[in-house]
């Protein structure tokens, strides 16, 4: 078992005191970020990314930096559950399904049980996904070593088609958002010809749009504006979490092992596909409701109804890092920001990373195990502390968050223009949310735009402009075919529905 050996090496890297300290700091910050309105995993990591620039330049620093940032991600995943259960406010889209049973449980006075089961199942979900990453990612990476530009482009195509095919909203809006991301990514100097594109002789546009600014604006400012619109007042239930409640809940949890296994499987499968965490949590909830003996009582405050979405969301959130590490294709906005971090630190995510930087990769994977254990300890012990932060009035917390966003946007390039840009993206994010335009495809396209375009151009160069290259061998043909199927899925499913409707009418 070569993987076990590599993993042990990774533990040796991750187990230093400095890295353990970073894990605690990262997870605590992450939970804080997950709890606060307007700060989520994606823009929390984006804001803190510039602070790691100097850290990453020291020897072994890149590993410490990714440990810090990924632990913020785990923390934010944990934190989302706190607001869902205590305040009925999902901190992240994938915690929406947690509110269905989590909040009723809290209202019944069983907030402690709801929180404990949410955290524990998050941990279980993440653990399953990390084990999957440990054993599957080296295989995928080895396989992907044979990929050329056409294969990579088809993988990008699959990523983006998945957004169109799997989104709940309008596929047209997904396409517009995604293509806008690509267009923004193209702004600036063209890497191949050196020509200026879409700059319109505006000097500030020469360096192009940075996705970090877009993430901070869209997810941060946009979220604040949406929250303020409701004239926000938090009305939450008190959180009491002591050892007795934790142990009692733990005694109850093994009963739902079937739900856990199912949800973890759903989560892992959906997480590898981009944008998968949110549908995964809903799917797992729906499945649990259908399969459980007391499915009828779901929504009135069943522990099982918390276990299912939380396990799936965390499994999905964690396995979103699998394609990011092995193929350089992030599965979620936060994974996209982490990928951007790797690029800034001078690391090329993708199959070669496993060969060239084994210390980094296995250090990161080992830190996922440790980080989630640390996360579980932190959230179980500090819930009252984090919940009390939500009791700080919004008129204090909102300006402080906006200041943090402004500082975060400024530090990316030390440019005040970026702060203005952040505000523009903030308004855009507000309108996007109100009109149901998805934001994740825009961010992913902005991050991957240049790489996707390069892969496309190189494939075209190789084939002298013949699109047939994307079907030239069974591998690339299968991926391209799958992407096209996903891309046209909304259209196909509608046709099927129409056809069925006709049949139904004829029979009736």
């Amino acid at each position, binding site marked *: 078992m070569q993987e076990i050996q590599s993993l042990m090496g990774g533990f040796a890297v991750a187990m230093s005191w400095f890295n353990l300290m970073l894990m605690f700091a990262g997870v605590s910050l992450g939970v804080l970020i997950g709890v606060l309105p307007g700060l989520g995993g994606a823009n929390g990591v984006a804001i803190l990314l510039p602070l790691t620039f100097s850290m990453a330049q020291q020897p072994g620093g890149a590993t410490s930096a990714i440990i810090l940032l990924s632990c913020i991600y785990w923390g934010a995943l944990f934190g989302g559950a706190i607001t869902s259960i205590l305040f009925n406010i999902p901190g992240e889209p994938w915690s929406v399904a947690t509110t269905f049973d989590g909040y009723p449980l809290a209202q019944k006075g069983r907030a402690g049980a709801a929180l404990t089961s949410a955290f524990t199942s998050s941990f279980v979900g993440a653990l399953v996904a990390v084990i999957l990453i440990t054993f599957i990612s080296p295989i995928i990476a080895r396989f992907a070593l044979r990929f050329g530009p056409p294969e990579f482009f088809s993988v990008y195509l699959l990523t983006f088609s998945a957004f169109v095919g799997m989104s709940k909203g309008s596929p047209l809006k997904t396409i517009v958002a995604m293509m806008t991301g690509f267009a923004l990514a193209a702004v600036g100097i*063209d890497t191949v010809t050196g020509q200026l594109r879409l700059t319109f002789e505006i000097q500030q546009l020469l360096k192009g749009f940075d996705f970090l600014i877009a993430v901070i604006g869209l997810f941060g400012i946009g979220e604040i504006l949406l929250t303020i619109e409701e004239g926000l007042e938090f009305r939450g239930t008190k959180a009491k979490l002591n050892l007795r409640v934790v142990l009692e809940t733990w005694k109850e949890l093994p009963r739902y092992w079937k739900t856990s296994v199912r949800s973890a499987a759903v989560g892992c499968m959906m997480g590898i596909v981009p944008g998968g965490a949110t549908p995964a949590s809903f799917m797992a909830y729906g499945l649990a409701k259908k399969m459980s003996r007391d499915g009828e009582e779901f929504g009135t405050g069943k522990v099982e109804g918390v276990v299912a979405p939380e396990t799936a969301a965390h499994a999905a959130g964690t396995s979103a890092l699998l394609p990011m590490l092995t193929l350089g294709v992030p599965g979620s906005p936060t994974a996209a920001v982490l990928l951007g971090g790797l690029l800034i630190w001078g690391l090329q995510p993708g199959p070669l990373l496993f060969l060239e930087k084994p210390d980094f990769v296995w250090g990161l994977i080992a830190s996922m195990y440790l980080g989630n254990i640390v996360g579980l300890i932190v959230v179980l012990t500090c819930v009252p502390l984090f919940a009390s932060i939500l009791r700080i*009035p919004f008129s204090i917390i909102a300006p402080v968050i906006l200041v943090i966003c402004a500082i975060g946007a400024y530090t990316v390039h030390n440019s005040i223009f970026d702060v203005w840009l952040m505000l523009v993206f903030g308004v855009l994010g507000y309108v996007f949310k109100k009109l149901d335009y998805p934001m994740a495809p825009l961010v992913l396209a902005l991050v991957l735009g240049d790489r996707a375009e390069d892969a496309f151009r190189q494939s075209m160069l190789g084939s002298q402009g013949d699109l047939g290259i994307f079907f030239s061998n069974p591998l690339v043909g299968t991926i391209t075919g799958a992407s096209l199927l996903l891309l046209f899925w909304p259209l196909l499913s509608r046709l099927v529905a129409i056809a069925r409707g006709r049949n139904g009418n004829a029979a009736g």
Partner: protein
Amino acid sequence: MDDRKAVASVRVAELVMAGIFLAFGALVMWDTRRLGASWGDDGPQAGYFPFYIGLFIVASSAMIIFKALNLGDKGRAAFVEWGQLRMVLLVMAPTVVYVALIANPWYGLGIYVASAIYIAFFMWYLGKYSWPRILPVSLGVAVFFFLMFEIWFKVPLPKGPVEALFGYT
């Protein structure tokens, strides 16, 4: 003005947003004419990829416009109500002033002083706090960020005359 009154309907908002995207896509396509969007001597020209991106944006937003025109009752729902828009503007306007205060060609205050003023204004105007509560919070946050960025992380942020008094420029 009635707070519950709609400023714009969903239909209008959909049309405006899709119109903006349509114009944006057209702009992208127009720029690729300059760059060349066809096949050059040595491969695809610089505008090759963006041309299709622009085309996709134009086509999709045109279809969104078409759908928005046929929204029916759903389109008549309020996109934003007066009360909501006022809250949003109450946050956006001071934030714009805040960013302008940080750095401008005439007299930049630096990010720390501007942040203190911004937080103080927010608490005073929206939170209706008294000054003994406002001052410790706003100054405390600014000082905390100063220590964190300038001293611990050594990430320089825009500074103004007040920091210069203490010898930080």
